[in-house]
């Protein structure tokens, strides 16, 4: 499933790298706010769901080759975070939904795909 289909199905708002949504394939997902845990256990192609907004999330997503980042609970990423994501080509999307809800919906979408 590509990122654009997933973002539209969940009503996610894209904050940067719109141009990459159509061509980015989502292979799986990971949820976590402890970046050390995300670095250790997530995989390339994952959509990463988190409540952290610090610019280190971009470095972690870039390092791991994530498809993109979903920031939950209505939190807004810092300007530094968005600038860096734009430079590194990491799509960041936001939603008012809780992490539990977002993860449940993504899991279902990916299982049905």
């Amino acid at each position: 499933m590509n990122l654009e289909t997933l973002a539209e199905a969940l009503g996610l708002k894209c904050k940067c790298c719109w141009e990459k949504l159509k061509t980015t394939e989502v292979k799986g997902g990971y949820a976590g706010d402890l970046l050390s845990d995300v670095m250790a256990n997530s995989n390339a192609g994952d959509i990463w769901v988190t409540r952290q907004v610090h610019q280190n999330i971009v470095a972690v997503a870039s390092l791991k080759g994530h498809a993109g980042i979903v920031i939950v609970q209505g939190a807004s990423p810092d300007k530094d975070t968005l600038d860096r994501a734009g430079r590194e080509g990491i799509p960041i999307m936001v939603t008012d939904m809780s992490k539990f809800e977002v993860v449940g919906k993504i899991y279902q979408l990916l299982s049905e795909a």
Partner: protein
Amino acid sequence: MGESGPGIFRCNLHVHTCLSPCGDLDMHPRALVDEAVAQGLDIIAICDHNSSENVPYVMRAARGTPLCVIPGMEVCTREEVHVLALFGDQAQLSLLQDYVYANLQGLNDEDAFGMQPIVNEAGEVEGFNERLLIGATGIPLEDLVSRIHEYGGLAIAAHIDRPSFSVIGQLGFIPPHVPFDALEISARLGIKGGRERFPELSGYPFVTSSDAHFIHDIGAACTRMALQKPCFAEVAMALKGEDGRYIEEDA
């Protein structure tokens, strides 16, 4: 030690008091000063969670003893990273306290988290802090460190080797643009162990401390520093390696 050269002082820069909800109630100012002196410490920094209201009483309790008490606080940032803020005087610390309280929401639940008594140097309870001191502030890490520096303090990333509430645990790695004055390694690992585990952080000064929440932990670890005398300004110089002051790592 010669008259003109620096001597070695034993510093524990991370000690809680009973004000921290997770701190033992026996950690009242007089008791912890007595224990620190008995353990042969020269400097302690008082760092309660998001609060500094027992600091003046610990400083009073230490009057007339050889112990130097550095006013400080362990602040929890928006990312849930713990940072030690140390200052040369209480006025600077109180500026940071205002900033922290303005960004800290919620009320404590004693049954869930523990009591937060403010206790004077005579061991008398002055009151209870009702704020949710165990909580995270809304302050971004970068803003906290720059505010600590603006007020003349030192910013030390707390227990970076621990999985929880540490900058590495929460943020995966130390953001290179954040100018920490030092990194704290927990007592279990120690400075030497920290150097082995984090070779990429060789550019930072390391300190170790007991992060004491219980009275018997106060002397459990310390950082040995070569200083002219035990005080905040000398500790700041040792972290920078200035003018013959340094941290003794091999001990």
